[in-house]
């Protein structure tokens, strides 16, 4: 306490502000203008984006004078789509693709189920499953198509074989990982009820691991759809080379990929675009219609996933 410093405090003089206006309550609740309200609707905005894209496409092709073989106008594409649906039997092609896909999907899921059940029951099964999935999951299924064609010939078996390969591994991998993540509490509940074997899997493991099973099914579908289209494209080349039997002129034997390939070979570019549109629509219907519904009715209803 040697030197005491004097501290000077500045004290602000008191004052009164004479000129405060009376408080006016501002525009607290204002109705949005019509324009704002409309542009706040999500579907409207997205639809506008779509329409703008279409208009831009149409204008670009018309004003730019693009060669129709390279890039047809939207109207041409649309007419081609309607024509293909009405006259050229596009629906048959969609059905061909989808039935092949569903066949492969069902068989693939059954095989995956058997593998996963083995994986749950025995340690050997689990090891086998992890080794096989680690090895075969990174292998694009389409790479097996040449082998499949050697083994099964040109035809649906070869395509289904490749489809199986594209479905089994993602589904098995995700399901197995999901099963392993099921909490010990749930397992004990199951054991408490005396569940064993299949009832244990069906009643405890599958509901508990359903989010990852669904992810597996979705990835499996995405890979299978891509593989199928690719396989039909490759097949296109093969068949053109050899017999011309599958999907030859006038018949509707091939699937969507084949349609795209064939029309491209014949320089029917509007029909190629129509085929692409159909592929997009089928994809959207399956992803948003089917999987979205399954999700809503299971994991969202059960409260396993929000929003």
């Amino acid at each position, binding site marked *: 306490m040697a030197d005491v410093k004097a501290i000077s405090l500045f004290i602000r003089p008191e004052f009164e502000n004479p000129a405060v206006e009376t408080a006016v309550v501002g525009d607290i609740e204002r109705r949005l203008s019509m324009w704002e309200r409309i542009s706040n609707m*999500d579907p409207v*905005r*997205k639809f*506008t*984006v*779509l329409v703008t*894209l279409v208009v831009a496409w149409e204008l670009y092709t018309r004003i730019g004078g693009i060669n129709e*073989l*390279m*890039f047809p106008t939207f109207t041409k594409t649309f007419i081609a789509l309607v024509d293909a649906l009405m006259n050229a039997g596009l629906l048959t092609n969609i059905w061909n693709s989808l039935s092949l896909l569903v066949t492969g999907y069902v068989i693939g899921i059954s095989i995956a189920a058997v593998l996963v059940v083995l994986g749950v029951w025995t*340690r050997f099964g689990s*090891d*086998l499953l*992890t*080794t096989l999935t*680690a*090895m*075969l*999951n*990174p*292998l*694009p*299924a*389409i*790479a*097996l*198509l*040449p*082998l499949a*064609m*050697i*083994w099964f010939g040109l035809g649906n078996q070869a395509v289904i074989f490749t489809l199986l390969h594209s479905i089994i591994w993602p589904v098995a991998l995700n399901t197995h990982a999901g099963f392993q993540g099921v909490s010990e509490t749930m397992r004990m509940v199951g054991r408490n009820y005396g569940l064993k074997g299949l009832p244990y899997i069906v009643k405890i493991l599958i509901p508990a691991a359903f989010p990852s099973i669904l992810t597996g099914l979705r*990835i499996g579908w995405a*890979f299978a*759809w*891509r*593989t199928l*289209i*690719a396989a039909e*494209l*490759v097949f296109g*080349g093969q068949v053109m*080379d050899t017999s011309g039997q599958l999907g030859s002129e006038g018949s509707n034997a091939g699937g*969507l*990929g084949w349609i*795209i*390939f064939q029309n*491209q070979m014949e320089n029917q*570019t509007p029909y*190629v*675009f129509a*085929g*692409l549109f159909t*592929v*997009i629509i*089928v*994809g*959207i219907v*399956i*992803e948003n219609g089917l999987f979205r519904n399954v999700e809503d009715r299971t994991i969202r209803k059960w409260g396993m996933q929000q929003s």
Partner: protein
Amino acid sequence: MSDKAIDIYVRPEFEVGALKDATNVDVERQLSLVERISNINAVRKMSILLGLVVLWQGYTMIVQPEPLLFPSFFASAEVLWETILSGEMFEKVWISLYVLLLGYAAGLAIAAIFLVLAVSTRIGSDFLSTMTAMFQPLPAISLLPLAMLWFGLGIPSLVFVTIHSVLWAVALSTHVGFMGVSETLRMVGRNYGLRSIPYILKILVPAAFPAILIGLKIGWAFAWRTLIGAELVFGAAAGKGGLGWMIFEKGDNLDTEYVFAALFMVILVGLVVENVIFRNIELNTINKWGMQR
């Protein structure tokens, strides 16, 4: 009120006088050698792999299928070794990887541009979600015929389809990740006065990194599949190609050992990318940051 007498049986107290010493309780027993070895994960998996190889070799030796249809393991391995020594295999792998990297990098760049737009404006966000909803279900490979029409036969078409397969998967996953970034983190960023690109790089990207990484992985998986598929389709036309083309060409010539060798290589590349590259990125980012256990 009924007055029933309730009989309660009360067990008489007793003491056991003669507890024997606990003997033959094998609390801590050395596991036998077989048990200890079979508890090592790597050993079990290696033996499964060996078992599969033996099965394959045994099948081809005993049943003796036509080697053109199903070659033995040793024949395939020998061809693999041979092509690796002669450098042919690496050349093919390099061609495939080169196209893949080109497409992947370009796809990421375009996705980044879209995402910057989507983060900064509402119309950009609408545009991105409409485009991803439309193009995500479209298999990239189905654009190949168009790409061949526009860019001719060659690397540009392959790069185009690869871009398409990467772009939407990455953009979708990243966009969803960005939208899920918590308001708290956003406010921290705004508090620091971060805007536009620094805001995205310093706040959104680290916070949404798990989703971005998933997008990158799915993008890679789609790109790899698309590229191999595209090279198969190209097989009919182009002269020089990567692994997919090798599979196609050798399959057509019934050189099945070469097909198997190329398949081995495809698996190997896939394993390296997934388990070495992505695994390391994961360990050094989201695992290190404690976003994933």
